[in-house]
């Protein structure tokens, strides 16, 4: 846009003072979704109904979202998926709010340090390498998450644990039975076990993870290791619930895990 654009009332824009003072404040005790105006509550949804396409399918989608409690529901798109399935895209206004001041999330790490900071932290406080054994357990063959944290190359521009002078690592790879993970951990006198669960269906990951904890408890060695789990369906909260010490979700970088391990072991 040119400076001389006559439609642009630039003078009032510049002279009106701080725009933040002019716009409404967010009430953190009552936060609603934001579309283009504070508190408009706009939510975008997409889903499929197992019914043939047509006005009835759209109306069914609208009614369903009504029943969910959304206001002013609009089905903006529908597509025939064949075999009597219809895909719908819809918008609605959310009538409820959340109190942001009361939100609490369990976090594994408080401070994430850098590569150099972690190495010197370990050298100063622990005066030895942290020994870590990692595995994708059970039937899971997808090592992408484990490799992202453990491999030399790492993830998102951050080196993996292998690269740290402060860590000695054993990456056992995919489809490792819990028993083998444990025997390796005992063999190398590991400080921590890193378990990755990527592809899961019908909650098989929960079963795998619970089994690991049970096996460790049965052998009376649960407390000898920090138990850490990561994966796209995992949170710290779920990890704690399953008897792990920490859980890391999608997008976790190696320094987050490394910082956690270093700080936790230093505490002990």
């Amino acid at each position, binding site marked *: 846009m040119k400076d001389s654009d006559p439609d642009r009332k630039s003078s009032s824009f510049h002279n009106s003072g701080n725009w933040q003072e002019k716009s409404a404040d967010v009430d953190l005790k009552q936060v609603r979704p934001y579309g283009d105006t504070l508190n408009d509550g706009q939510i975008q949804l997409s889903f499929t109904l197992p019914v043939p396409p047509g006005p009835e399918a759209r109306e069914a989608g609208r009614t369903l979202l009504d029943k969910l409690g959304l206001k002013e529901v609009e089905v903006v798109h529908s597509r025939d998926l064949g075999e009597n399935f219809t895909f719908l895209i819809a918008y609605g206004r959310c009538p409820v709010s959340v109190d942001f001041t009361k939100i609490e999330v369990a976090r594994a790490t408080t401070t994430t340090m850098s590569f150099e900071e972690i190495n010197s932290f370990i050298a100063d406080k622990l005066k030895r390498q942290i020994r870590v054994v990692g595995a994708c357990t059970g039937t899971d063959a997808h090592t992408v998450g484990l490799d992202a944290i453990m491999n030399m190359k790492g993830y998102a521009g951050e080196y993996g644990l292998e690269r740290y002078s402060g860590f000695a690592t054993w990456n056992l790879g995919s489809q490792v039975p819990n028993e083998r993970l444990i025997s390796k951990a005992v063999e190398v006198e590991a400080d921590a076990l890193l378990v990755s669960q990527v592809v899961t269906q019908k909650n098989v990951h929960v079963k795998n993870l619970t089994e690991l904890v049970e096996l460790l408890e049965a052998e009376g060695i649960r407390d000898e290791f920090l138990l850490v789990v990561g994966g796209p369906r995992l949170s710290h909260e779920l990890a704690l619930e399953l008897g792990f010490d920490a859980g890391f979700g999608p*997008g976790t970088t190696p320094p987050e895990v490394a910082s956690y391990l270093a700080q936790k072991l230093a505490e002990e």
Partner: protein
Amino acid sequence: MAELEVDEKLVADCHKAAAEIADGVDSFISGLTTTSVERTVIRLLGVNGVDADKVPVPNIMVDQLKEAELLNEGAAHCLGKALLAGSYEVEGLARAVARGEAYLPDLIKQCRASREEVTSFVSDLVEAKAGKIKKTRQEREELKKELSTGPRPWLYVIVATGNIYEDVRQARAAARQGADIIAVIRSTAQSLLDYVPYGPTTEGFGGTYATQENFRIMREALDEVGQEVGRYIQLVNYCSGLCMPEIAALGALERLDMMLNDAMYGILFRDINMKRTFIDQYFSRLINAYAGIIINTGEDNYLTTADSLTEAHTVIASQFINQELARRSCLPPELMGLGHAFEIDPALEDGFLLELAQAQLVRQLFPEAPLKYMPPTKYMTGDIFQGHLQDGMFNLASIITGQGIQLLGMLTEAIHTPFIQDRALSLDNARYIFNNCRNLGQELEFKSGGRIQARADEVLKETAEMLAEIGKKGLIPSLEEGIFAGIKRPRTGGKGSDGVLECSRHYYNPFADLFRKELSSQ
């Protein structure tokens, strides 16, 4: 068509090195067979079914023969003798073994026929059974002629519900949404089972078990919906893992159209024993070739663990090796779905140019192969909107460079196995871009000395160097050193080594002999 300048001398060097490498593999496995190859022969002879504990009869038979130290003669000869003992036809024998009423070594002892009589009896049987596979192949060719298979790149989507009947529902819907190819993903870890499960299955993890009955159910469903939508819908499954040749045989019998088949993938990513899987691969590809089934190789996976920029040449080096190994199993180039992938970090400036360079180079190096192009997975984050766009860029690279088989990316990659609408959105994405840019490749030229050309030159040069090095060292020692995907595997390690056995002086595999003879005379 936009073409890169390719140094023909380097290409010739690559082929020469690949031939040397394949020679090394041939001598590594010569004079050996495996329990899975012998189970395959037994299956091809018509044995099927399971015992009361769900153990497949081919496994029981091979175990009996192995225990009695007869398996080195080849299962075909053994089974021929057992049948000539006179009490059973093939199906009856299978049932008797399943019930525990027949023990092959005992029957073999009763056989009074001479070696020549047994051989000729077996060869008649084999010819009849091979005829069935040939008929299935003809049936496919006729159906393809009657309906079309859709323009290339073919649109390939997966179903992975774990329940074959739910898979059918999703596959039929996908066909109506425009899919050309349906792959039924196998249950996680089936590759490590040393037997093929039996019957229709309704429970699996991350996929559905590959069984003969599941193949049949899906084939029938796709034939039916194919008639309605006016396209021949191609069906894919996996003959990889410990039962490579057995599943190849089932695919041949049930008219599958493509099968994933790659020993190096098994060695690297499933830790399967090298000897075992190279032997299995040789026979399974012979079966694929005889049945007219396109193989899909797994090079794309290298880039999910290794860096896609610095390791791009390893994909092409592996394709040269895979092509040469496939050729030795009599697979013609048009059945070689060599794999590669669109996996460069989307944050990289000009990353798309590098993807184009790779895709076009592979296209020109293997001009007759229906290349299997794999979508972004490594940099899919859960941001489905960004992911959908990445899939669009992948589709654009494919249509410009003329890929053969487009495994469509899903916007929900890295979150869950595809929902029904994910597949539809992916198909819409691909059809939009393919249609909108159908002849874009014809209108473009790669700038001589430009970035794309320079990248292709660099990758080809690295490929030739890598192949020369593997050629000198041998593939097996190279795999031990972790040359592909950064994964090291010792030659004596891995699963399934206990299934490798030496052939006796009289050993023969009549199916391998017949397939090879007919295929090499074509």
